[in-house]
Structure formats: C-alpha cells, structure tokens
C-alpha cells in the first residue's frame, strides 16, 4: 500500500472513489502519522477513533454505492471550532476540559460531507497571536528548519499554527483555520502551503469561539489550491443561526478552477512596498507579477492610501470586540473557576487572572480601554471611520483592477522566542489585515524559498464574493512557481 499521507485531498477523494484504497486505510495511516509527529505539538487533542468511525461509515456508504464529497478524507480541526463531546479549548487554559454539547456549523458541514476528524489543532490562545506562542498548551512547531545547519525551532505562524504545521508535515491532508487578521494566510505562508480566507459571511461563525466578530472568518489550509477549493466548498454556505451569514449559494469553486487569466488586471499596491522587508520577499513579489502576466493577466499599479493605518485600526477594533466577547469566561457556566478571596467579583477576577494568558489579557485591557468612558470616540469611533476609508480604498482600487497581488507576510518564519515585543509581533500581519478589515476574500499561495530555505507566500486579494478569481490566480501562480519543496522529516 502506497504512502497515502503524501496524497492531496483531491487524490485521496478520487482514489477512494475509484476504490484504489479504503477510507479506513487512509485514516489508519494518518492516525499513525499524527502519533509519530507529536514532537510538533500540532494537536491539542487527537481523535483517532473519530477518524476511524468516519472512515468506516465512508467505506460502508461506498459499498452501498453512496459517496459523499469528502468521503474517505480525514481532516484536522482548529481548536477554535466547537466539536460535540470533544475538548474545545481555543488554546486557552480557561476552557481546559470544556466539552461542548454542540458542533460548529462549519465542522458539521465537513462531517456530513463525509470527512473524518483526526484531532483538534493547536492555536494561539483565542486566536490572538501570530506565532502560536500564546497557546496555553505550548506552541506548535514548524516542520521547517533553516538551512543554516542549526535546528532552532521555528514558528509555524499563527493563530492557525497547529493547522499549518500539521498540513505542512503531511500528518493531515487539510485543516480548518480561522482568520481574523491573517491567521490563515500568514501560517500558510510560513509553512509553504495554501490557505484562503473567504468573503466575510461565507462561512458561518456559529460554534466558532468568537475573537472579533466583525472580522472572524473560517477557511481551509491545504497543500494545493484545488484542495482549498474543495474544502471551502464544503465549509461555506448560508446559516440562519449566524445573523452575519451571507444568504447566497456556494459557487462550484473547484469545477470552475482555471489558471487562464486573460483579460484580468492585477493591481500592485504601491503602499505595500515598505522598508525593512527582506529583498527575497520583494523579489518573489516581482516574480509573482511576471507569473500572472504569463497567465494572461495585465499588471497595473494601484494605490491603497490608508494601508499604513490598517494595523492600528485593527488593534483598536479587534481588542474592543474581544474584550466584550471574552467577558463570558467568568467561571460560572463552563471552564476554569478559581474562587478568589471575596465573593462573586473575587471569583471573576481570580478566574480570569488564572485562565487567560498574557497576550489575551493585554488585548482585553486595550479593548476595555478604547471602549471606556471618554475614549470611545477618540479610539473606537475613529477606528471605525478609518475602517470605512480602508474599505473605500479597495472599492476604488477595484475600479482599475480585478485582483490584488502582494506578499503575504513581511518576513519568513521566525524562531520561537525570537519576537518578544508585542508590537513587533503585531507588525507581522501588516499585509494581511487590510483585507480582513474590508471583509474581502484573500489567499496565500507558496511562491518559493528564501535564502535560509524557508517558504515565502504570495497574497491575492479579490473583490467581495470573488473567491473564484482569487483561487484562479493562486492556481496560475502554483502552476508556475513549481513549489514542490517539503520540509526534511526531523520529527
């Protein structure tokens, strides 16, 4: 039996349909790979039995002539998605041992599409982080290492770091992630895989632990563009339980994949050329432009004037919403409870002090401050106005172009423990955040390796609802970049 863990989701799906192998064989090999890769700390919970049960069901269904879209395909689920009777921690100590009696809409859709669950994937606490280091369960570690002979542990990025590490290491063929300000795209770039954040509202937020409601979107991470299209198709769709869910049919993204970009205009935003970005990244960006030209697209210079204000805007709005969304973790109905010295408030303050990590506290504090009396207008209202301008920037730009190409991140993966200053960490999402603030579909696709042998990603931003345009351009890059590099197995 061939090494099934090297196959893409499309290959697994088609091979299973063709009867080349059984779903149980697939699940067993991935379950084994998960165990073998524990040193990556990619999982918070392993659920081999769930994977096997789903595989059994898929094999039976196949015997009965029924094959579901993701039959025979096991996946990893970010630990931000509520999974029925399976620990759901959001990477936080405050939710240690929390077993919801409900299943998030997105993971439920994957389930009913026939996919199995290999486990829950490690992440930054409440998705607040860009390196996975804020996880209460220790950081997931990137399977990649620098080519300097040293073997310092690198970050897989964050917040969907466990998802990225697992996919890159080939211990899951694909995974769910969530993206609030780059949490799918930056880890994908750091680990040489693909990841797409759809238009805000495409994927239901119901059952996903909230970080910043106006920004949170679920999306897939996988090794190929096609795999991302396959997964996103299964994850997306209208959900009446989410008031911000888009009441629209899910387009046949996979079937409509095409790398022919004739007639497409690709915008290159001047403001994304910033100081301190490694030459390798600028060089890759230029190559990306050529690849898209080669695919038939016409590059055009565009301007997104408020780009430099996107991050500060994000660091007002996201913490503000988070400070309110995280108020429910109070030790009363679920999760950690620490009885303090004095009554109810003592319990609240002791529980939250013990349950939240430093970065989450930092953001709750910022969010509480920017909403507090006397500061609301100066910070929050101001930020929402700038957010309007950022959205307008994109609207204007899309008069002159159909897609936007930028680098995904201003650097390659950095070493765990290397970035200690919170601000320096925040700056990592400088290219990813504007699309989040505008709710636009955006994707990272691997473009090559830098001089240290680490993957770099290219970033495509599309019009509202134009996931197809984003996927197609990513496909054109994938075909031309010929990115086949895989991390040396050291784990």
């Amino acid at each position, binding site marked *: 039996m061939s090494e099934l863990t090297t196959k893409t989701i499309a290959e697994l799906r088609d091979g299973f349909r063709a009867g080349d192998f059984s779903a149980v064989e697939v699940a067993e090999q991935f379950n084994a790979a998960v165990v073998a890769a524990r040193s990556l700390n990619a999982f918070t919970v392993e659920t081999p039995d769930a994977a096997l049960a789903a595989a059994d069901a898929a094999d039976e269904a196949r015997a009965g002539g029924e094959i579901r879209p993701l039959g025979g395909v096991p996946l990893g689920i970010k630990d931000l*998605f509520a999974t029925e009777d399976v620990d759901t921690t959001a990477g936080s100590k405050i939710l240690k041992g929390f077993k919801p009696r409900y299943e998030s809409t997105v993971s439920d859709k994957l389930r009913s599409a026939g996919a199995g669950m290999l486990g829950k994937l490690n992440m930054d606490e409440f998705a607040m982080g860009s390196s996975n280091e804020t996880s209460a369960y220790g950081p997931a570690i990137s399977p990649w290492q620098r080519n300097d002979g040293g073997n310092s542990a690198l970050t897989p990025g964050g917040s969907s770091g466990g998802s990225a590490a697992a996919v890159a290491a080939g211990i899951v063929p694909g995974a769910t992630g969530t993206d609030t300000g780059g949490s799918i795209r930056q880890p994908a770039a750091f680990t040489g895989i693909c990841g797409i954040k759809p238009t805000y509202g495409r994927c239901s937020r*119901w059952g996903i632990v*909230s970080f910043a409601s106006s920004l949170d979107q679920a999306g897939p991470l996988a090794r190929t563009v096609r795999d991302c299209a396959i997964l996103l198709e299964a994850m997306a769709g209208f959900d009446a339980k989410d*008031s911000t869910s888009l009441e629209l049919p899910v387009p046949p993204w996979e079937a409509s994949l095409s790398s022919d970009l004739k007639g497409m205009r690709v915008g290159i935003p001047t403001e994304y050329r910033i100081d301190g970005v490694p030459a390798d990244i600028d060089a890759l960006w230029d190559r990306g432009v050529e690849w898209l030209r080669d695919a038939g697209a016409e590059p055009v210079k565009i301007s997104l004037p408020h780009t430099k204000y996107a991050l500060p805007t994000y660091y007002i709005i996201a913490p503000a919403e988070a400070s309110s969304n995280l108020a429910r973790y109070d030790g009363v109905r679920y999760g950690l409870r620490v009885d303090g010295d004095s009554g*109810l408030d003592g319990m609240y303050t002791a529980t939250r002090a013990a349950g939240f990590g430093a970065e989450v506290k930092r953001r709750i504090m910022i969010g509480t401050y920017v909403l507090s009396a006397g500061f*609301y207008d100066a910070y929050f209202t101001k930020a929402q106005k700038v957010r309007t301008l950022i959205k307008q920037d994109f609207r204007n730009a899309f008069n002159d172009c159909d897609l936007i190409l930028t680098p995904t991140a201003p650097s390659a993966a950095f070493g765990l423990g290397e970035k200690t200053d919170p601000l320096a960490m925040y700056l990592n999402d400088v290219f990813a955040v504007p699309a989040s603030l505008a709710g636009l579909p955006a994707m990272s696709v691997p473009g090559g390796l830098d001089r240290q042998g680490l993957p770099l990603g290219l970033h495509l931003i599309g019009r509202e609802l134009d996931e197809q345009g984003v996927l197609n351009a990513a496909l054109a890059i994938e075909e031309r970049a010929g990115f086949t590099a895989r991390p040396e197995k050291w784990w």
Partner: protein
Amino acid sequence: MAGANAPYRITGSTGDWEVVIGLEVHAQIVSESKLFSGASAVFGAEPNSHVSLVDAAMPGMLPVLNRECIRQAVRTGLALDAKVNAYSRFDRKNYFYADLPQGYQISQLYHPLVGEGEVEVLLDEKDQTSTKAIGIERIHVEQDAGKLMHDQHATMSYVDLNRCGVALMEIVSRPDMSSPTEAGAYLRKLRAILRYVGSCDGNMEEGSMRADVNVSVRKPGGELGTRTETKNVNSVRFVMAVVEHEAKRQVEVLEGGGVIVQETRLYDPDKGVTRSLRSKEDAHDYRYFPDPDLLPLELDVAFIAECRASLPELPDAKRKRYEALGIPPYNAGVLTAEVESARWFDELLDGGVEPKAAANWVASELFGALNRLGKTMATSPVSPTQAAELLALVGNGTISGSLAKQVFEIMLETGAGAAQIVEERGLKQTSDTGAIDAAVDQVLVANTDKVEQYKGGKEALFGFFVGQVMKAMAGKANPKLVNERLRARLD
C-alpha cells in the same frame, strides 16, 4: 390628597420644593420565544429549562432577532404616537454580573427602535379637564437578565437563566411628572395602552412591567436637582410611594446641608423606604458599542404599515366615541380604563342597547355586583349578550327598573336568561287599566282620611298613594299608568 390641579409641593423648613419625576418602564414583550433565541419566553418553568445554548452564552453561540418582538415594540410606539425609526441598531452594554451570562446585555443606546412620543393622562377621573401630556423620550428593545436566588444556600447564590434573553421594551419618559398622582396616572395609562395593544400583559406582580423611578427635587422653577434612580418598582402604588418618600428624603438631606448623590436605590415595600444600592454602583462604565454579531435593523414601509393597521381602537379614541354616544365622561372614562371592560361594553353595545342607560347600568349594577362577588369583567358570570337581553326588557317597558335589579340578582345566582326569569316568575309589568283602577279604588277606600288631607292641599301624599297601589299590585303595575289613573281620580 390635595386637588390634583393644585401643584404638588413638599414643604420643608426652608419653604416649598417641587418634585421632578421621570420613569423608565421595562415591559416584557408578549412573544412565544426569546428576543435572540428560540427558547420559550413563558414564565415559571423549572430552573434553567427555558434556556438555549445562546441564552447560556456558550462559546460561539450567536443571536438571531425575533420578528414578533420588533413588531410588538413598533406597534407600541405607534400607539404612543411615537416616531418609529426605520433604521435602528443593537449595542452591547458591558458589565459583569451572575445573571448576565454574556457579560453584556444586548440593548439599543445609539439608535433606538422608537423615538419621541406622548401619553395624555387624566389626573382626576372626576374632572375631565385635569389632563396632562407626558412626553416619551424613546423606546428601545433589549434582553432581560436571569434571576439570582440568595436564600437557597448559606454561602452560594443560585442562578436561573429562564428569564435571560426574554424581550423587554424600555419605555423612557421625559421628566414631565411632578407628583405621585401624575406618576401613578402615567403608569396606569401606559399599562392600559400596552394591554389594549397586546404588546405586554402588564402583569406587574409577575414582573412583566417594572419601573425605574427617577426623582429629583428643586425650589419651584429653580435649577434641576441631582436625581436618584429607584430600580424595579413593581406596582403603581409602590411607584407613588417611592416618589413621595424619595422626594421627602431628598428635601431632608438638602435642608440638612447635605448633597444628593446620583445613585441607584432600591425600594423596600415592607419598610416603605428606599435604600442606596452602592454595592452595584462601583466603577460602572458600560462601554456601549454596536454589537458586531448583529447588523443594522432596517424596517420597510410595509412592515410598519402592517403594525399600524393591526392596532386596535385605543383608550382615548374609545372614550371619545362613547362620549359621542351620549355616555357621560366619567362613565366613559371608567369603561375604557381597562381593556377587558371596554371589550365587554363594546359587545354589550353590539346587543343594540341604549348606550347611556347601558353605561350607567354597567358602572353601577354590574361593577357593584362584580365587586361583591370578587370577580372581574373577564370572569363576569353575566355575558354581554345576557345583559343586553335584560336591558332590552327595561327599555321596552316589560319590567321596571326595580324589577330589573331583582332579575339581575337571579341571573347572577342561576345564570338563567332575563326573559326566561321574567316569564317563569311572572314578573311582567301589567298595563291592564281595569286591574289598576280596581287597585286604585281599593287604596282610596282604605284611606279616606288621607284622601281628605290630600284634597286639603297635602300634595305630598300623592307618592303615598302610588306606593300603595304598586304594593297592592306586587310592583308589577306600569308606574306611568298608576300615576295617570290616580290623578284622574284625585284631581
């Protein structure tokens, strides 16, 4: 109580003070399910049984707005001649308390559903001119909180979330009231209107209507004083008591050289006093901001038109209509004060009775009987149809007013119809002049002395003869004929 039109004053050692009162009334909206969840809104179930995962603020749960709650709030606004805002928003009011699982209440601060309106109250039923217009500042829709029980356990408080998330309308008045009487009249009128509209059952004992009473005092015409807010007062009587007590207390404090602190207070019905709730006061900063889980609420013209079209005839309109039917203002007021009596009386009118007499009969006979029997219009043993039958018999001269009283008593006891009773008990009034003349002869012969006195000028004796004849005929003689025949014989 001083005449309602004489201004209410508190006389202190430094002279007179006037009182300024505003009410914030929380009215539970009549609906099957909660404002943002599909859990039952019914009162009095097993603890935590009418609770959804949304109400319990489980991670990843999201609010979805109930159309009926918005419809009822809009209908209420229209009934109060208020401006309905086609565009409104929901905001989060952030604070920690054990009865508030989300850590915030979803309410409407910046863009309420309903704007300014007005209620006309009658300060003295006896005086139709004693009206006053009380301004409505706004009506917003918000979630109710859960319930805490402190007496179940020595060291614990118990939390029941059944009420949590039930829809409330907060009806905020302008500080237009200046006496306990006005506050009472306003609350009574507001309650009546809500019950006519059917948007709130007005059941204050069960807490489906609670008032926050804002009171301040000032020297007549002087600067507004600092107000206190006495929360959750749950009867008209208590509201009036709170105003009276709180105003006196404030005058004492001020005249004693003290200052009024803006604070929340609680009313103690047993002691009849209010006390400070500083425990709840400390460091409140609600950090209101638009709820990112919800979008702006935009109502179209058709929706608002339907709300308007579905409004019933309201108390003021009904009273005017009754007065136009010749019903005295006092009776019209009494009959329209409660929706049940108004509906009952409308059915009676449908029975084709003479309005003035009918109103009179209801106000005196029926109300009297119901009081005696401890029953209400809703539980009246006599139906409007039965009453119409009785009044018809009086109207067409079949029975006299005095006989009608007897018949009514029998109706109350037996539940039998008026005509049947009159028939069976032979209570029909006779106009048989032969019989009447015979009785007249008999009476005059038996009282020759009095006949002499009468002829001698003692006119007053005429009544005596009438009475004797009626008595001789067991009250069944037509009084008009008896008069005629007597005069014919005596004068």
